[in-house]
């Protein structure tokens, strides 16, 4: 299974964070406990019953990452995962990537920002030139 997190996530404003997470859990047949753990790590537990319309862009991004990590995924495609999140959340994201990668999962990150090698081990990096993927 592949999971994709958008660069600028946009969700219905009238549902709560939990509504969205429950949907991902149901569709991907994921374990609730793991998702709750993810929510806690991103510091979002207290806001999950609030409507998404009241979220800041940082909270929205964290919610999209929680949903992206929900389920038994083989390949994670994270589009600009570092934009709009604070350094604390970025640390959580780095640790999650390391942890899941240790379990044999793969990650494809697209980013305009340089990834600090101290935070994350990147096995290969590419750039796009004239619609072609070129190895750095």
């Amino acid at each position, binding site marked *: *299974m*592949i*999971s*994709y997190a*958008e660069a600028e*996530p*946009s*969700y*219905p*404003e*009238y*549902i709560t964070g*939990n*509504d969205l997470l*429950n*949907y*991902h859990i*149901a*569709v*991907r047949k994921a374990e609730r406990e793991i998702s709750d753990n993810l929510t806690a790590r991103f510091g979002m537990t207290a806001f999950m*019953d609030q409507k998404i319309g009241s979220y800041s862009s940082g909270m929205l991004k964290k919610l*999209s990452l929680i*949903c992206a990590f929900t389920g038994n995924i083989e390949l994670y495609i994270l589009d600009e995962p570092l934009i709009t999140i604070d350094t604390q959340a970025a640390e959580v994201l780095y640790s999650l990537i390391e942890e899941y990668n240790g379990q044999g999962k793969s990650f494809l990150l697209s980013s305009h920002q340089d990834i600090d090698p101290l935070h994350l081990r990147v096995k290969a990096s590419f750039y796009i030139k004239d619609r072609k993927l070129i190895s750095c």
Partner: protein
Amino acid sequence: MLSLLHKTLAREFYTQHAGLFLFLFYLIFGAVEPGQMLNYHKSLLMAISSAPLALLSCFLVWILYALKCVLFVHKQQKQANHTFLNLLTTLSPGRQIKVWAKLYIILFLPVLVYIVLILMTSVYMKYYWNVPGIVLFTGFLISAAAFYNYRFNNNSFIQHKALIRIPFPLFRKPEAIWPVFYVIQQQTIMFFVCKVLSFLLFKAMLWMFADIGPDVRVALFGLLAAILSHTVLVAMILKHEASCLSFTRSLPLLRRKALLNNLLVLLVLFIPELLFYFQTVDFQIIAMAQGLIFSLAGLFSFKMVLTSLRGNENNYLKFLLVMFAGSAVAILAHQVLYFSLSMSGLSIAYFCYSYYKTDYKDMNIEH
């Protein structure tokens, strides 16, 4: 600036409401035999001019139409691709209101044509008091609408509380019908206006053919009017899907489930009209099944066609014309079921094979 508003707002208004105008046009000109057309309109105009109650009913319909125009312009004003409208605020307040008023005159044109006819009839029949009353009322409607948009354009930074808020108890909203919550909670007035128009047109069709007696085709024509009144609502749902529900496409959702969810949303939104139709056909099973399939096929095909056209509303208008003509012929020839099944088959085929291939970013719809 006015020509820009004309090219964007006015043109878009007429294309988005093509279904509604199509049906009104049919109601006014197509439902009467050509030989009786002149007398029919003459009697109608005389009735409106001479009976205060009939004139009052006209005023109510015009208010409804004005509300529809205002809501449309207001919705467009909030779109990111209409920020050029903010340039208007550099003009003096008087000139801004004048520009908005001119735009509303263009949007009101179908109503204004009929108003001129009523005024002429009133003068001819010596009901002189109607003239200042109608002129003042129309002037008030246009000025009020223009003033509303002027206010919104200049004070959009002020947070307003929703005019109508339907309190929903906190419960887990079923994912399948999220768009229904969107329409009811976030597009409340638009939804309300759509429903009122839908019922008015449905009822108008029944009244118009009241002399025919019990015939399922009359009820089906009413249903067709209601379906065509929902074109705006269907476009609105598609826009919502493109902007807020695109993430569902990356989820492992079975296509048949996605299809059922789509149909369920349309069914839930159309329940009031369907109940009214069922009552009209005296709950006859075959007629009820016909109406149900016809409604779902019509609404779902609107959505699929708008998706396949990448939101191109000019081509959508052409489809509505074809759909209207095809449906009318099918109803008259007692072939609604076959017509609906063909439409459903084509729409479902499109959904299964191409729907997920359509990139929302390529679509000509505002996010």
